C-alpha cells in the first residue's frame, strides 16, 4: 500500500514561525494542495503581504514576491498585465487588505484583474502585536481598543466579501472559514474554484477565510475557534457572494 497522506510539492520543509493554533498553516496547505492538483506550480507567482504572512514565501516552493503593506493587488496587477500566462495570487490579512490596502483591492477587483486573492480575516493585526483591525468585532478587546471596539467611535467592522461583491465587475467572491473540518473542506473547494476561474482567464476572484489568532485574542486554540464561531460567523456569513455563473 502506498502513502495515503503526503506533503504537497508546493509546500516547503521550513519549520513554521506561526504561533501554535494559528490557522495560516491550514490555509497555506490548502493553497499548496490546490496548486499541486492543478499542476501549476511552475507558472505560479505568489505575493506575500505585510503582517504575519509576510514570511509566507518561506513555506512555498514556487516564485514569490513580497509586497508592501496593502499593495499586493497592485503588484499582482503589474505581473498579470505583463504576463497573463502566469498564475498569480495575493495572500493578505485583514489589516493589510481591509485597512491600508483598501484602495488597491477595490480597484484591482473592479478592473477585473485576473488574479486570485486569499483574504485571511482573523479580526486583528497579528504581526504588529494585536491591534484593532477594520474587521475587529464590536467590543473586541485589542491593544488599541483595550476597552473593547467602540463602534460609536470607529464604526462597525467592514464586511469585505459583501463590499467587493457589490461591485459589478468582480465575478467570484466567496467567504469560507478554516475553523472546523467541514469548513476546511469548503474552503479548499472555493480556493480551487478561484484558481480554476483564473486559469480560464475569466475573472478576479477572492476567497475570504474566517480565521483565528489565539495569541492576540488571548485564547487557547480551541477557545479561539469557539470564539470565532460564536462571534464572527454570525456577522460574517459564509457562502458564495458572487459567481460568474450567476452573473
Amino acid at each position: 500500500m502506498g502513502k495515503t497522506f503526503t506533503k504537497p510539492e508546493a509546500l516547503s520543509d521550513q519549520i513554521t514561525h506561526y504561533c501554535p493554533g494559528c490557522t495560516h498553516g491550514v490555509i497555506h496547505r490548502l493553497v499548496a494542495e490546490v496548486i499541486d492538483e492543478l499542476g501549476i506550480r511552475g507558472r505560479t507567482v505568489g505575493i506575500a503581504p505585510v503582517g504575519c504572512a509576510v514570511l509566507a514565501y518561506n513555506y512555498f516552493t514556487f516564485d514569490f514576491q513580497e509586497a508592501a503593506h496593502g499593495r499586493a493587488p497592485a503588484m499582482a496587477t503589474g505581473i498579470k498585465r505583463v504576463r497573463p500566462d502566469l498564475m498569480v495570487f495575493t495572500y493578505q490579512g485583514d489589516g493589510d487588505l481591509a485597512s491600508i490596502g483598501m484602495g488597491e483591492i477595490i480597484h484591482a477587483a473592479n478592473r477585473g484583474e485576473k488574479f486570485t486573492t486569499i483574504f485571511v480575516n482573523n479580526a486583528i493585526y497579528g504581526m504588529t502585536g494585536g491591534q484593532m483591525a477594520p474587521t475587529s468585532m464590536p467590543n473586541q478587546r485589542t491593544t488599541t481598543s483595550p476597552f473593547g471596539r467602540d463602534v460609536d467611535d470607529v464604526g462597525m467592522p467592514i464586511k469585505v466579501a459583501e463590499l467587493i461583491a457589490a461591485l459589478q465587475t468582480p465575478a467570484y467572491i466567496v467567504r469560507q472559514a478554516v475553523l472546523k473540518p467541514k469548513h476546511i473542506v469548503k474552503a479548499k473547494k472555493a480556493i480551487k474554484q478561484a484558481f480554476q476561474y483564473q486559469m480560464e482567464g475569466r475573472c478576479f476572484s477572492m476567497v475570504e477565510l474566517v480565521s483565528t489568532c489565539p495569541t492576540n485574542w488571548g485564547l487557547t486554540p480551541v477557545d479561539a475557534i469557539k470564539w470565532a464561531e460564536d462571534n464572527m460567523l454570525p456577522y460574517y456569513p459564509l457562502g458564495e457572494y458572487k459567481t460568474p455563473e450567476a452573473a
Partner: protein
Amino acid sequence: MAKVLMKGNEAIGEAAIRAGCLNYFAYPITPQSEVAEYLVRRMKEVGGVFLQGESEVAVSYMIFGASAAGARVFTTSSSPGISLMSEGISYIAGAQCPAVFVNIMRGGPGLGGILPSQADYLQATKGMGHGDFRLLVMAPASVQEAVTMVMQAFPLAEKYRNPVMILGDGLIGQMMEPVEFFDDLKTDATNKDTWATNGMDHRGSRQRNLVKSLFLDPEALNQNNLTLKAKYDQMKQEEVRFETYNTDTDYQVLIVSYGTMSRVCRTAIDNMKKEGVEIGMVRPQTLFPFPEKQVLVAAEKKSCKSVASIEMSMGQMIEDIQISVQGKRPVHWYGKCGGDVPTPEEVTEFIHTLL
C-alpha cells in the same frame, strides 16, 4: 531617421517604445499627462501594455510587480505624484529591480503649482523614500536629450538592477522641439532568469526565485545594503555625465546649472561674452552620480573667482557643488521657484554682482 517636431511629453513616451519598453502604468498629473494620452494609443498599435492606475502609490507597485516578473517597464509623473511613488521606489530599490521613472517637475511644496520647477533635486538625488538607496538620476536639457536619456535609462536600470529617474522640468515636457529617435539606442532586456519571478517553467528551472526587500537578520540586511552601496559606488565610477560650456576661456565665474535652467545660462554666457566678460559652465547630465571631480577641476581654474549654482529651486544643487568644490572657491546661489524661468538678463545681473 528624419527629425520630427514633437512635444516633450509625447517624445518621452515614443522614446520608451523605441527603446523596447512596451509596458506603461501611470496616473494623470499636470504637466505630464500627455505621456499617458499619447501612449494609450501607441501601446495599442505596438501590442504593449497600458494601464491607468488608481493612484501613484498603486502605480509604483504595478511597476514593481511587472519588473519583478521580468518585464521592461516605466512610468511618468510629476512632483506630488513622485512623492506618492517614492514608497514603491524604495521597495523596488531594496529588492533590486530595474525600472524607469520620469519626473516632469512642477513647483512645490504641497500642491505648489503646475509650472516648471527643479524643486525635486534633493528628493531625486538623496531623499527618494525611506532607507539607504539611490536612484541614477539623469537631467535632460532639451526634448532631444530627454529622448536619448529615456532610451539609455532602460539598459542602465537593468545593468544596476536599480530604478533610474529622468528628472526633467515642466518645460521639457511641454515644449516642442525637433527630435530624432536613434535606432542604435534600442536594446533588448537583459536575461533576468537568475532573479526574476517569471515562472519556473518559463525559465526551465526547478529553482524558485524570490523578490523581496525584507531581511530580518541584521547581518543579511547589512549585506543587502552593502550590495546596494557597491552599485552606487560603481555608478560614481562609470556613469558620470556632464557637458561644459565656454570653459576653454579665462572665465571669472563658473556656473553650474542643469536642465532648462542651463539653457538660459548658456544665453546669458553668450551675452556676457559680447560685453567682454567670460563665464564658464558645467552642466551635470547626471545628478546622481554628480560630476564632482569635473566641477572641482573647473572651479579651481586660476581665473575663476567664484562658483554660482543657478537652479529653479531654493538652493538644492548648491550642496553638491559645495561638496565638490571643497571650500576652494565661494559658492553662490541664484534661482527662482515659482514657475517662471529666470531670464538671461536676470542671470546676467546676478553674475555681475559676483564680478
